């Protein structure tokens, strides 16, 4: 277990390192001299040299990279170009909104998708199975940003049931939930299909295993077999899928935040891209990658905790 954990964490660290390296290279390969951009054309060479020394721009590139990594590890992601506030502070204000949205979205879709997949696997080719199949393909095929737009069209413009803009009054819990419904619906809808299909496929496979036949022969109740013995094994690939699909989930939240004007990491990246505020973009990209790596790590550890066989494969 410990060697698995160690290897898995090393892999994550390596991926984060590569991502930071890629970001650093991209930032340094754009044309333009940062010193003259920062100080303007009328700065004297002395001022330029002083600025370069202060920002470590006179050092060789690999040295700059080491400083960059060091700052990232210290949690220093630089300051906002306009307000001069700490990027980390700005992002930590936005992050909870994104996490709440992502967790709610994946939560409701798991609550519906997993039982749906389970039931359709127990009775393959039944009416429920066929409906689930159509619903799965249908929900997967509609892009989440289109779901957001059409949801606004139907529930806000047409029926006037739900609000469009914002995340609700701070402190007013009910209002915040009220504002969360539509975005969470839009982000999660595609996942219902994904999860139902994934669970159905792995459930079908598990149900044909010998130990399920034995459990049947012992005369266990079919509900006990399905939910206690079969689902426990069949859920494993689904957990991995959620982990790996976290990037797609984040893409969905980015669109939902922009379309519904909700605060969050996606919304801030979008606004900062329009404003060309690079330190904030860079910090937000790093935070998203960090979140992705942590989520896949948690998913993999959860799988290896549930299934001892996996521990030996890495």
């Amino acid at each position, binding site marked *: 277990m410990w060697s698995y954990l160690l290897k898995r964490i090393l892999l994550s660290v390596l991926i984060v390192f590569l991502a930071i390296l890629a970001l650093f290279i991209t930032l340094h390969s754009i044309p333009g001299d940062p010193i003259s951009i920062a100080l303007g054309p009328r700065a004297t060479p002395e001022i330029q040299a002083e600025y370069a020394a202060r920002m470590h721009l006179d050092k060789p590139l690999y040295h700059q990279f080491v400083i960059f990594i060091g700052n990232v590890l210290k949690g220093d992601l630089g300051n906002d170009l306009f307000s001069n506030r700490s990027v980390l502070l700005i992002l930590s204000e936005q992050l909870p909104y994104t996490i709440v949205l992502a967790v709610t979205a994946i939560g409701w879709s798991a609550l519906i998708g997993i039982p749906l997949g389970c039931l359709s696997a127990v009775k393959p080719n039944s009416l429920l199975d066929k409906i689930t199949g159509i619903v799965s393909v249908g929900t997967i095929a*509609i892009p989440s940003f289109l779901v957001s737009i059409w949801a606004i069209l139907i529930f806000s413009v047409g029926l006037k049931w739900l609000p469009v803009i914002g995340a609700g009054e701070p402190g007013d819990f009910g209002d915040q939930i009220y504002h969360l419904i539509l975005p969470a619906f839009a982000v999660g809808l595609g996942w219902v299909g994904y999860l139902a299909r994934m669970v159905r496929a792995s459930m079908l496979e598990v149900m044909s295993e010998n130990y399920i036949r034995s459990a049947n022969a012992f005369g266990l109740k079919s509900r006990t077999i399905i939910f206690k013995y079969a689902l426990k094994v069949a859920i494993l690939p689904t957990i991995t899928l959620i982990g790996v699909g976290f990037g797609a989930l984040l893409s969905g939240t980015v669109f939902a935040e922009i379309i519904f004007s909700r605060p969050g990491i996606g919304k801030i990246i979008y606004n900062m891209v329009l404003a060309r505020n690079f330190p904030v973009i860079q910090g937000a990209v790093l935070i998203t990658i960090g979140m992705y790596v942590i989520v896949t790590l948690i998913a993999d550890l959860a799988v290896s905790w549930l299934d001892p066989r996996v521990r030996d494969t890495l």
Partner: protein
Amino acid sequence: MKAYKKKIILSLPDVILPEKLVLFLRNPMGVLGFTLVLLIVISAVFAPLFATHNPFTMDIANRLAGPSFDNFLGTDQLGRDTYTRVLYGGRVALQVAAIGVSVSLIVGLTLGMIAGYGPLWLDNMLLLLFDAIRSFPTIVLALAAVALLGPSLSLVMTIVIITSIPGYARLARTSTLSIKNTEFILAEQSLGASMKRVLAIHIMPNVIGPLLILAAMDVPVVVTIEAGLSFLGLGVQPPTASWGTILNEGYLIIRTTPWIVIAGGIPLILTTLGFTFLGESLRDVFDPRLRKGK
């Protein structure tokens, strides 16, 4: 990390047999998907023939008009015909899909075969690279790239290509690994064939089948990325018509003129549905073992 990897054992190249065709035609989903794809491709290629207006001609007097016999899907805020713009939008979507998918297929195939066939250190390095690329959420990568380089159609394509290469490469790698030690490859090696020859003539035909199916299923993803970025104003730039820009223009006036977001969304859904159905039924016909994966 390994649990989601698919195990694929391939037989000798599947020749397209009439038997397979019959199997495909018996699947209503497949036929529906094929019809949709055909319709979309024809409507995009022959867009000027089907169009009733010029996609850029403004008619301010007739702006935001509802659907009528003259403007099948109404007009937008500049009085341009929405039906015509939707037709031309299909051209952008399919152009991005065709170029994006084929380039990433070729690069992914090559890298994947090299990873599977080459030395272990190279394999490990490439795998790590693929994982690192996949750890960037596509849309965040796209936003960062647009911030640095400015929005353009070629940037959208580059992002599509970079983010889809790992999928093809991983699939090609697993297939290559599974046939690397079969007798006919060993025989070829003992005859002194170069790595290039083994890969191009013997491994490639055995590996490419599932990749082509993946390509069909990848088209919806690519079309969605293009539409999504153009919707955010970070992809195709106005006045060029794209389903994304149409949706964006419609979104801004959603309260008064709902038909523009409906008109821009329906072709997008038909495209994703068509290619998904086509890809899945092709997979069921040619490679049923892939079924449980995706």
